């Protein structure tokens, strides 16, 4: 039962290929916290590297030739912009004493946050149909980080 829950953390393609073997191995020892953490880490790695199960897409086949969707510029740029916007908001509170300076920094942060929406949409449209589970993980991460930064950026009162 608990083994099934742990295995469900893996992508479906991974479970189809290695699920039975992994389950067999899990049944050889009592389930401990360390074992569960090892499985969770393995599942996270499997989500980040779906290309490992499609070596034909990567003809050179090398371990270093593999890459994850998370490393694509369209995945990283929105995350970087969110962090830049957060730095601007924190910076304006910490360093700017003048109201017009704070306003300028705040408007810039709001523009940066709004500019990310088409970038996140572009990433979702381009990558969700290709690497569904991995791209979904990235989109969820982008949206969560966007929301975390958007709240202080849009609701800060100058």
């Amino acid at each position, binding site marked *: 039962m608990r083994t099934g829950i742990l295995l469900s953390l893996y992508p479906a393609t991974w479970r189809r290929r290695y699920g039975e073997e992994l389950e067999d191995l899990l049944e050889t020892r009592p389930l401990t916290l360390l074992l569960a953490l*090892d499985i969770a880490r393995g599942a996270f790695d499997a989500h980040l590297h779906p290309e490992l199960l499609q070596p034909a897409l990567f003809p050179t086949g090398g371990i270093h030739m593999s890459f994850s969707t998370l490393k694509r510029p369209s995945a990283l740029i929105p995350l970087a912009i969110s962090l830049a916007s957060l730095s601007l908001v924190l910076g304006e509170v910490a360093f700017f004493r003048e109201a017009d300076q704070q306003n300028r920094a705040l408007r810039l942060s709001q523009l940066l946050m709004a500019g990310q929406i088409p970038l996140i949409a572009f990433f979702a449209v381009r990558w969700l149909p290709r690497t569904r589970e991995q791209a979904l993980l990235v989109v969820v991460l982008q949206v969560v980080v966007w929301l975390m930064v958007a709240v202080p950026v849009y609701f800060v009162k100058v």
Partner: protein
Amino acid sequence: MAPKVKLSSEALLILTSLADGTKHGYAIQQDIVRLSGRRLGPGSLYGAIARLEAAGYIVATEAEGPRRPYRLTASGSRALADAVEILRKVTTTATRRLATR
């Protein structure tokens, strides 16, 4: 010529285990415990197996029930030999330098 791939310690242990014959996941895990004292968790073991398969260093053979044996390929054998050669140089140098301290 196959691309050179840097092997993780888990990958090196798996290739070493398979160097003396075909083994399934559980047998690889037990062999690694015997040869290194280290027990690879199932997540780590199959993460490394997937990478070695993708690199063409090992191949799965016909399943025996839920257990699927893996076999070292020729390129896996070359990769292991290269890694062992590097380790040999490191070991020799370390031994020599420790002796002169």
